[in-house]
């Protein structure tokens, strides 16, 4: 059984959307879950969130950022190519209930995983206020989809090229302070869920903590098997070691040790560079071997 790529396009520079034929995964996928894929027999196993899924068509959609060897190689594939292994859906689904008003925060590539969660929360009857942010307007994606999945959508860019000039945390802070009060003047934001780079998630946790709003983040530690067998993905939550692949990936943001998460994510930096250099060298070699017209 191999997993054929049905569609693949570059959404914005270095960010790709890929639709893969994976009927058994699509049938069971829920918002918040991820897959682990391995491109070929030489490949590393990497986790990617299921950004969308269609049980009827038997497909899943992945959105990924080119950052190293594997994601670059994945980006080089096209519709019709296939991926050797896709295992999933892994991890616990996001809690989808009627909470009331939920703020969904997606930063950078984190917009992709927040999308199915926002959509499910909205159809469960919540008022969904989404805040999505990127460095710049030209790398912002899925604005249309997020608009549809939300009752209200805020956009932020670090350079001010679109929406609020600043960070997603500015908007969240503002919503908590001024925006959302019910008829008794009580704060009416019942839940915040934030997905993005660890620094962003830490910042969101910092903003919501003083307001005592339940805040959930989806952690992205390095993983190998994704089934609780290796412990590579261990994170510290409330002082207790958890395996993000089976105990998470979502955890209480106010309990997460983000410093540990970030230092563990940097564990293989020299090796990642070596893998990339090696890859670059071989692709340069290939290009050189081709006759120039």
């Amino acid at each position: 059984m191999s997993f054929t790529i049905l569609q693949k396009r570059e959404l914005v520079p270095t960010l790709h959307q890929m639709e893969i034929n994976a009927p058994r995964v699509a049938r069971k996928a829920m918002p918040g879950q991820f897959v682990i894929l391995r491109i070929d027999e030489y490949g590393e196993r990497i986790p990617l969130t299921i950004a969308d899924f269609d049980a009827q068509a038997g497909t899943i959609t992945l959105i990924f950022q080119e950052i190293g060897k594997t994601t670059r190689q994945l980006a080089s594939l096209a519709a019709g190519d296939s991926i050797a292994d896709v295992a999933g859906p892994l991890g616990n689904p996001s809690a989808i209930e009627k909470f009331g008003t939920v703020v969904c925060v997606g930063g950078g590539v984190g917009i992709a995983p927040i999308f199915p969660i926002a959509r499910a929360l909205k159809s469960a009857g919540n008022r969904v206020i989404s805040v999505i942010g990127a460095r710049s307007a030209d790398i912002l994606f899925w604005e249309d989809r997020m608009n549809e999945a939300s009752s209200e959508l805020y956009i932020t860019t670090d350079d001010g090229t679109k929406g609020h000039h600043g960070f997603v945390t500015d908007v969240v802070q503002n919503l908590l302070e001024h925006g959302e009060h019910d008829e008794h003047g009580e704060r009416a934001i019942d839940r915040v869920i934030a997905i993005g780079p660890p620094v962003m998630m830490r910042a969101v946790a910092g903003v919501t903590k003083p307001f005592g709003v339940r805040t959930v983040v989806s952690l992205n530690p390095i993983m190998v098997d994704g089934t609780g067998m290796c412990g590579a993905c261990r994170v510290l939550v409330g002082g207790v070691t958890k395996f993000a692949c089976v105990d998470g990936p979502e955890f209480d943001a106010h309990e997460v040790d983000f410093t540990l998460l970030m230092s563990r994510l940097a564990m293989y930096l020299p090796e990642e560079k070596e893998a990339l250099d090696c890859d670059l060298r071989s692709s340069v070699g290939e290009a050189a071997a081709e006759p120039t017209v």
Partner: protein
Amino acid sequence: MNTEPEAKPKKRPEMAKQPPSARRSNFNEVALGYDREEAVAEAKRCLDCKKPLCIDGCPVGVNIPLFVRQIAEEDFDAAARTLKSTNSLPAICGRVCPQETQCEAVCVLGKKKDGDPIAIGGLERFVADYEIAKGTTIPDLPEPTGRRVAVVGAGPAGLTAAAELAKMGHAVTIFESLHSAGGVLVYGIPEFRLPKSIVAAEVDFIRKLGVDICLNSVIGKIDTVDELLGEYDAVFLGTGAGLPSFLRIDGENLNGVYSANEFLTRVNLMKAYLFPEFDTPIKKGSRTIVVGGGNVAMDAARCALRLGAGNVTIVYRRGEDELPARAEEVVNAKEEGIIFRLLTNPIRILGDENNWVTGIECINMELCEPDESGRCRPEPVPETEHTIPADLVIIAIGTSPNPLVTIATPGLETARYGTIVADEAGATSKPGVFAGGDIVTGSATVISAMGAGKVASRAIDEYIRRI
């Protein structure tokens, strides 16, 4: 009869090994196997006992005297058929069974003064390798029964149950969560003890029996056991005991601290020893400490050494006699230069300001009176705290059953530590669901898992013919 047992040599031929100086820097197989002359000569030592005790020592009941006699008669094809009729994974068992406590422990020849038991494992490996080199023959299969069985987990227990059920004419599908079949045989036991090409060849034999192997299929996620029961007549759970234990001491989440499972999975399953040809990275320490004294600790230590980890030290809280690893593997490890710090227990893992491990703080232990279990309970010796520097630490203190399947299966009774409760035939508390191997016993051996798979296959056969 003129067989004169006394006239036969008492000793078995010693199996050739790669010299320690060479093997400490490569991942090629250490033990090289018998050649034809050695195998035939060794087979001729067997007494072909009337009441062969050796068979009772084998959990899958290999007809040892028969296959050994067939080797002596140089009819290797017949020997291979004999083996395969009871054991679908002989090339694996010949290499990794703890024969010294199984079949060879009860061979009469070993009971004689200065006598070596027949090298049953070595002979089994010889025949199985002969067959793999020549091309495996598939036995005639009975008419399909129309019954369907789902097997969860492609470790030794699941593979054996599947092979036996296929040989009974049932349609079998194995669901395996990883991208490769074999369980611990592919992710845990290193290449230099069990080449992955050998595992692949034996898995291929099981496929050729008609067993369908669905990889990348995590049961509990992609399908539940209840859903499988809707589609299949019975389910066998052979999901192993793959959840790594940690010491629960400070510093265990520092960079450079691995569970043995992660370290071995990266090296073996993901082939990190061939990085960057293969994409998965692994840290190569210059001073590595492995905590634990079992086979897993030996495997991790010997892998670390082969990656070029400078010096590798095993830290174990009991003494030499208590080391749970196979004696042969301890000898191999020592020959390769692994350092043993026995009666030493870690109390804290130390790190630098960048969260990287720098060493472990240990305390000396002494053995006191044996406790009820017969083992000596080690006690710390006050004021013997000391630090061993390290830039890589591997925790190899054991594993327990992974709860992924059990928590998603209502009505399945589990015991302390998460093992599934099953009777001697492998039946669980849930009708139609059977289990065997490490998921029932906790970490044990390849051959005991295979034995459990085999026993359960008979119970499953009975069950599905009845319904």
